[in-house]
């Protein structure tokens, strides 16, 4: 998906959900409140890294840099990996910078 402009949160959610769904081979319906880290997560750490790499590629296509190694990404309390919605929110935010 190529937007060529700053994306809004709904577009970011669509991208993130589609990316995760593809990596889970459509076996699971990905919801906004799905956890990405912790015991409830359906993604193992390897899959989570793959999600990040795929989002990095999407960011490249849309002319911005997606930094998933930042403090925001890693912080436990504010981590963008809390949920799908949190990741989409951070993805949209980084598209603005």
């Amino acid at each position, binding site marked *: 998906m190529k937007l060529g402009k700053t994306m809004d949160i709904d577009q970011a959610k669509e991208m993130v959900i589609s990316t995760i769904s593809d990596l889970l081979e459509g076996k699971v319906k990905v919801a906004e409140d799905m956890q990405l880290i912790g015991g409830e997560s359906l993604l193992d750490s390897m899959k989570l890294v793959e999600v990040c*790499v795929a989002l990095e590629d999407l960011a490249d296509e849309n002319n911005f840099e997606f930094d998933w190694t930042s403090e925001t990404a890693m912080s436990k309390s504010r981590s963008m990996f809390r949920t799908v919605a949190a990741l989409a929110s951070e993805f949209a935010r980084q598209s603005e910078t």
Partner: protein
Amino acid sequence: MIIVTGASRGLGKAITERLTKKGEKVIGLARSTDGLNIDNIECDVSNYSSVKSAARKVKKMKTPIKAFINVAGTASMNMAVTTDESTVQKLIQTNLAGTIYCCQLFAPIMLRQRYGSFINFSTIAVALALKGESVYAASKAGVEAFSRTFAKEMADFNVRVNCIAPGPIRTDLLRGITDTQIQKITSQQIIPKQFQKSDVCDLVELLIDEKASSLSGQVLNVGGV
């Protein structure tokens, strides 16, 4: 391409020269890139932002990384009780944190390719528990522990991680160390002789080579322990 940190001096320089001679494209990372006659990026490995900036530049090159060689390091030969706080911090920050920063920030490029090799540098002082090198050895023991675990994390992506642990090799790090002191150390190795930079370069070549595809999470002690 192959990236070498600490490329401007000592072992890093020797490795860079060896690989370049072999026809490899080498990018040198160093705090001061003056006099480096290869493509280079100024980078202080002990500074997270500096490493991140270097990784960003390398990523933009869109050239596969065959190997990342973490040579940059600093040494201090002192008893723990005579090592001041700033030296402790410098050793940990450069040797341990620097290696971790480089691995974690360049790993995303490597795992995307699904191949490649990290080579980190430890010291034989870890295995031999050399008296007078406690803080230095501690920083390098951290590198070994990190490398073994990091190797497991990277294995799913077909990226290998290994350590080379040289004994006393004549570089700037050993200035002030006498031949007698060196002999005292080398006598504790299985092969009790002083090895050279070229021996370490041979091991680097081995670890980069596909023939070493079964090796990951290992520490190669030069001279044996």
